[in-house]
């Protein structure tokens, strides 16, 4: 049996990436500014997890007319109600905004709508989140994102020099901001699952970046005379095929999930796919270029790589 492995990259790739970093700066800089501006101008489409409100997923025997449905539901006097197809034409998702008044009124909204829809309709899922819980979830989500950013930075600081930690966190913040901007532009619902996706994106993106940094550190020891830009470029190229290969396998798996995994987690999967793309981009184009801001990386004492030693000892 002979299997001929397919190579996606030349054996020794030598793309001029660090040399053309101005393009990356320009692109990333404007994307971040745009993302921030759009997030503040348009705002995020906060899900009921954070805003409070109700949600009903229904299945009709035959595709209903959305405008008829809208009329029916609008007449119930529940305020802003959004109705959308969910996955296929017979499935409808109804979102009801937070009701004014006591908690009693909130929980009655679901029953009001399901009663109005009649017996023929299958209620597949209902959800209600009160304003108190919404607020708590919002805070917990923000704390979770902050804590993981801090945790990741602390780890990189511990394993590398502080310059790497700064460059790593810059790439990370870049990914998170642009992802949030994407949610603002597309109007995708920003909910608890999105927070989970953001954390995963953060973890994934820094994972890629760390591999590049690991190589930078190694090359700093091996090529003591090489100018920093060339050395960084060499490191990025050395790890390029790995970075892209891993992203490809992850994206393959995520696409399977997006296509076959059902409607409920589709948005979550899209966010993850986007995160892999932006994380890969930032690891290649942003993180290592950012190290150039610290010219003294070149002259610092390369720290001893503990994992290398322990690995050598086990042999």
């Amino acid at each position, binding site marked *: 049996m002979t299997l001929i492995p397919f190579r996606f990259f030349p054996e020794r790739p030598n793309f001029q990436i660090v040399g053309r970093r101005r393009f990356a700066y320009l692109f990333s800089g404007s994307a971040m500014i745009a993302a921030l501006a759009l997030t503040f101008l348009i705002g995020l489409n906060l899900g009921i997890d954070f805003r409070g409100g109700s949600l009903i997923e229904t299945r009709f025997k035959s595709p209903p007319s959305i405008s008829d449905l809208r009329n029916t539901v609008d007449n119930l006097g529940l305020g802003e109600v959004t109705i959308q197809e969910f996955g296929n034409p017979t499935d409808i998702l109804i979102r009801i905004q937070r009701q004014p008044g006591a908690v009693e009124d909130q929980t009655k909204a679901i029953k009001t709508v399901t009663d109005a829809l009649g017996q023929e309709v299958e209620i597949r899922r209902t959800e209600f989140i009160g304003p108190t*819980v919404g607020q708590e979830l919002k805070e*917990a*989500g923000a704390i979770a994102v902050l*804590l993981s950013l801090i945790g990741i930075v602390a780890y990189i600081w511990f394993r590398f020099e502080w310059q790497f930690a700064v460059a790593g966190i810059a790439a990370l913040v870049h990914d998170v901001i642009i992802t949030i901007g994407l949610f603002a532009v597309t109007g995708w619902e920003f909910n608890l699952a999105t927070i989970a996706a953001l*954390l995963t994106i953060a973890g994934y993106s820094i994972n890629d970046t760390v591999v590049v940094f690991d190589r930078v550190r190694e090359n700093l020891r091996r090529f003591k005379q090489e100018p920093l830009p060339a050395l960084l470029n060499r490191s990025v190229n050395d790890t390029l095929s790995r970075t892209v290969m891993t992203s490809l396998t992850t994206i393959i*798996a995520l696409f399977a*999930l997006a296509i076959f995994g059902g409607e*409920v987690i589709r948005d*979550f999967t899209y966010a993850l796919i986007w995160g892999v793309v932006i994380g890969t981009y930032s690891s290649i184009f942003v993180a290592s270029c950012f190290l150039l801001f610290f010219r003294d990386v070149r002259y610092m004492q390369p720290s001893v790589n503990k994992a290398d030693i322990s690995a050598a000892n086990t042999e």
Partner: protein
Amino acid sequence: MLYVEKWKALLIGLICVLGLVYTSPNLWKDNGVDVSSNIPAWLPHKTLSLGLDLQGGAHLLAEVEIEAGIKQRAAAFEDTVRSALRGSGIRRSSPERLGTAVRFRTLDPADAGRAADLIQEADRTAEVTVGENGSITVGFKAEDAAELRTKILSQVIEIIRIRIDELGTKEPIIQRQGDNRVVIQVPGYDDSAKLKNIIGTTAQLNFRLVDANADPSSFIPRPGFDLLPAKDARSGQLPKYVVKTSPTVAGDLLVDSQPSFQDNRPVVSFRFNGEGARRFLDLTGKHIGQPLAIVLDNQVISAPTIQSAIGANGIITGQFSVAETQDLALLLRSGALPAPIQFLQESTVGPSLGRDSVEAGKLASVIAFVAVAAFMVFSYGLFGIFAALALVFNAGLILGILSALQATLTLPGIAGIVLTIGMAVDANVLIFERVREELASGQSVVSAIDGGYRRALSSIIDSQVTTLIAAVILFAMGSGPIRGFSVTLTIGIVTSLFTAIWVTRLMVVTWLRAGTRRKTLPI
């Protein structure tokens, strides 16, 4: 040198097999075979424990208004004051409620001390404070108040448990959360409206006399009388009633309650304990011919006319359906909640959506698995096959650990597994790329493999630890289905490190030793 000691090889093999063994019960279950009877006793039996989003069911988060419960209990101090001072000749203002205490004034401040003593004697647990100008406050002792809170909360939980158990559902989870919250999970039950009705109704029942002379429409509040709404003002029922504040007989004296019929109409029958029977007989015997209001949570269910004196056994009539009498009987049997509760959050998933999600998740996982494995073989040839095999053991370990620990698998949890499948091969990609590099720099086959595994290790660990940090924080902060994502992601990261490094290494070494003098690597 490239060598894996025998005991290490055995250990690696053993762990992989254990993963598959612990996963196996799930396979029998899928084919509709009864797990417990067909598997030998020494093999594991535990199957994956599915979250509510996958098996269907209701999840409720309720807040117990403990403060209101304490206030309710404080109302008893009014009676204490009245009965303690009855016949003492002390003239006083009528007691007023003040938060969780009751306050009144003796008209002659000199009586205050004696009044306080009398009250203290009547109720040793009360905190009686004498203020200026004969004002006396009766409340709970500080240490009792804290205890009362815990007691109210645990009583609420106990009553909720009784009520849910009566619904006949399997394995409901009722848990205290924080100081005043209760989480209720009922698998396989998706009628949240009924569930909330059963759990959330305080069910405080009492019987009070109706003032037939008063006109509810022009009622002016006056002491000793209350204006109460009818529970549901259907045809033929008055929308409001004027009822006397006392005497009353309360529902906490009931010992049993059952749905029943009278004249072919659904009613609820009840039975009082000894004291209840005595008081009810007293109340009904003295007021034959007068309407008696049956009041549930300050709403009048009905107000039938008392035909004769009634003792232990009675019935509640009203505009009931059969289902309503069943629910009301259940509520009365379980007793009233000592404090009202409010629902902060609820979610229900119907069985069909849960099934669809499981099917979709399975399909997506299998396709992701096959696609990633194919891609690895395509890119790395024989070594890709090693990586794909490692992926099988990885999946076995994840599912085996989930089954053995009975960790809840949710839909986002399935997403976590799929994501892990994609990322698990990362370690192999790192190693294989490194091996290629070493080969390109002119190393021999053996030292290229050796160097590849050794040098990739630091990158692998650094990169996985960062993802692990995010996953662990997500676990700590997250709740519900999202927490399931962090569970599978965390397990997946750890198992994939093991399979991608040690399992593939064992396979590569075995392959190297099986062939004589391999000169080239199919990578």
